[in-house]
């Protein structure tokens, strides 16, 4: 491979990365807009409607405001890690999108075999997602510690405990998906759900869908699990942050929210397949993004509906309810797969048998 080939390869990689990150940044901006409008609608008020037609320029104005604000670094803070922490929180979220398959395309019939639209169609995609998304904990821990102040460190320990607790039940929920699909490759998992609504994993794994989505809520620190940013607990790890660095944390939070919604649609809601096979003439990416948008709407809906959990209630839900529940469901699925009289029920969803 010559130097020229390597340069071309590097440019292709850079373009692939941009093709994912730029839409994510834009959709994060407009999810904040949608959130304010939807909550406004649910609470019978207007929401933001002043900047531009129907308030559509509001996210840009917010971005500009945050960009122009001064970033204050506390005098006793550890400067390197204080500045690095928001980046450490954001990068894993963006890196996780590398394995997300957005659909299948044959490029209008140019390719004989349809290609999966993902930067990397990794064999261990599901594990990669679990591993990478668990790394944003470091950003939150670092933010609390580097601020060198008591409230951020309490807040960061609180939110780290929350993230670690819910990761466990999320992981066990994913095990049941692996048991049915027999693969860790995300596009294989979607292929295993082909053939309409009844083949989707939300039918046999409905409790896991609930556990995964609610744990996702807790992972990203959304209401009702937003103890990381509550006023009565003096906010959280981000007390000392201002301006653009503060915005980077919320960018990471909203990016993680998009990721969880995409993952739920891919793992449980049939990915890029239509609910009825006849509707597959509509491109798969439209279906995937529609499912994802609905789940993001559900996140916002939660925020407008539920009061906040108390800390001990949150820990109880993670460890004493979700964990036994997911472990029990793994046992049930295993029992159904290997018991002679019962296996014909679950064979309908078993791609590998």
């Amino acid at each position: 491979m010559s130097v020229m080939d390597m340069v071309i390869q590097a440019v292709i990689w850079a373009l692939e990365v941009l093709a994912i990150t730029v839409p994510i940044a834009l959709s994060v901006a407009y999810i904040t807009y949608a959130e304010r409008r939807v909550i406004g609608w649910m609470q019978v008020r207007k929401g933001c409607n002043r900047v531009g037609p129907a308030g559509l320029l509001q996210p840009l104005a917010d971005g500009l405001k945050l960009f122009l604000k001064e970033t204050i670094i506390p005098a006793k803070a550890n400067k390197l890690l204080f500045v690095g922490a928001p980046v450490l929180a954001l990068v894993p979220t963006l890196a996780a999108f590398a394995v997300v398959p957005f659909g299948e395309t044959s490029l209008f019939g140019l390719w004989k075999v349809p290609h999966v639209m993902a930067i990397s169609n990794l064999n261990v995609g599901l594990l990669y997602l679990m591993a990478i998304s668990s790394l944003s904990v470091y950003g939150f821990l670092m933010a609390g510690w580097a601020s060198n102040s008591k409230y951020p460190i309490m807040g960061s320990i609180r939110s780290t405990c929350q993230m670690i607790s819910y990761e466990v039940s999320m992981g066990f929920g994913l095990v049941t998906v692996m048991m049915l699909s027999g693969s860790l490759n995300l596009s294989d998992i979607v292929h295993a759900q082909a053939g309409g609504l009844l083949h989707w994993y939300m039918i046999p794994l409905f409790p896991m869908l609930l556990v995964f989505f609610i744990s996702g809520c807790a992972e990203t620190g959304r209401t009702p699990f937003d103890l990381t940013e509550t006023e009565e607990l003096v906010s959280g790890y981000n007390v000392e942050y201002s301006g653009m660095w503060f915005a980077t944390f919320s960018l990471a939070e909203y990016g993680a929210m998009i990721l969880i919604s995409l993952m739920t649609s891919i793992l449980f809601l049939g990915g890029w397949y239509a609910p009825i096979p006849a509707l597959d003439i509509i491109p798969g990416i439209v279906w995937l993004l529609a499912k994802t948008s609905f789940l993001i709407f559900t996140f916002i809906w939660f925020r407008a509906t539920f009061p906040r959990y108390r800390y001990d209630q949150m820990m109880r839900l993670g460890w004493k309810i979700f964990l036994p529940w997911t472990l029990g469901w793994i046992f049930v699925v295993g029992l159904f797969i290997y018991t002679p009289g019962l296996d014909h029920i679950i064979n309908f969803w078993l791609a590998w048998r």
Partner: protein
Amino acid sequence: MLESAFFNLFAGLCVLSALGVVTARNTMHSVMFLVFCFFNAAGLFFLLDAEFLGVILILVYVGAVMVLFMFVIMMLEQKKDELKSSVRQYLSLGGVIAVLLLMEFVAAASSGVFVHGAHATAAHLGQQINNTEQIGQVLYTKYLLGFEIAAIILLVALIGAVVLTIRKRKDAKYQNISAQVKVRREDRVRKVRM
């Protein structure tokens, strides 16, 4: 060429960050260096087509073990003058270990296993061979006994840690959440005729 470039990048960063772990004054910085070191080691696994091991390395060590390390270190107080005295205290023991390790490394490097060209650019197996499946097959057939023993040891350690640290405090007030959730309006509100 691209592959050996990546091998040199990962291996070099791995060694440099490992040096950083030892030399950094701030313990928090050394933890971050160690995390970075694990990342590069995972990159080396990926170059060897062992993507399962690479991802597991990140998931277990970076995602779980190092977070616990960091939790402990965050709670510690750092004292500058104590650092200097402890260096003198452990210098002799550490020196002996370092010399022994160096001798082992030199012996391993000169044994001929790592001749030029044998690193990273090993034969590739292609995507159709799924090494997750291969590892699973071997673990659950050939090495089943060892695997199960390791699992039991981990379980015993887990339960042991809980048993050692759990204590019921008499003065602590616990809330019964299921009772709280079950409360209905009739239990709290009484209609009084005036």
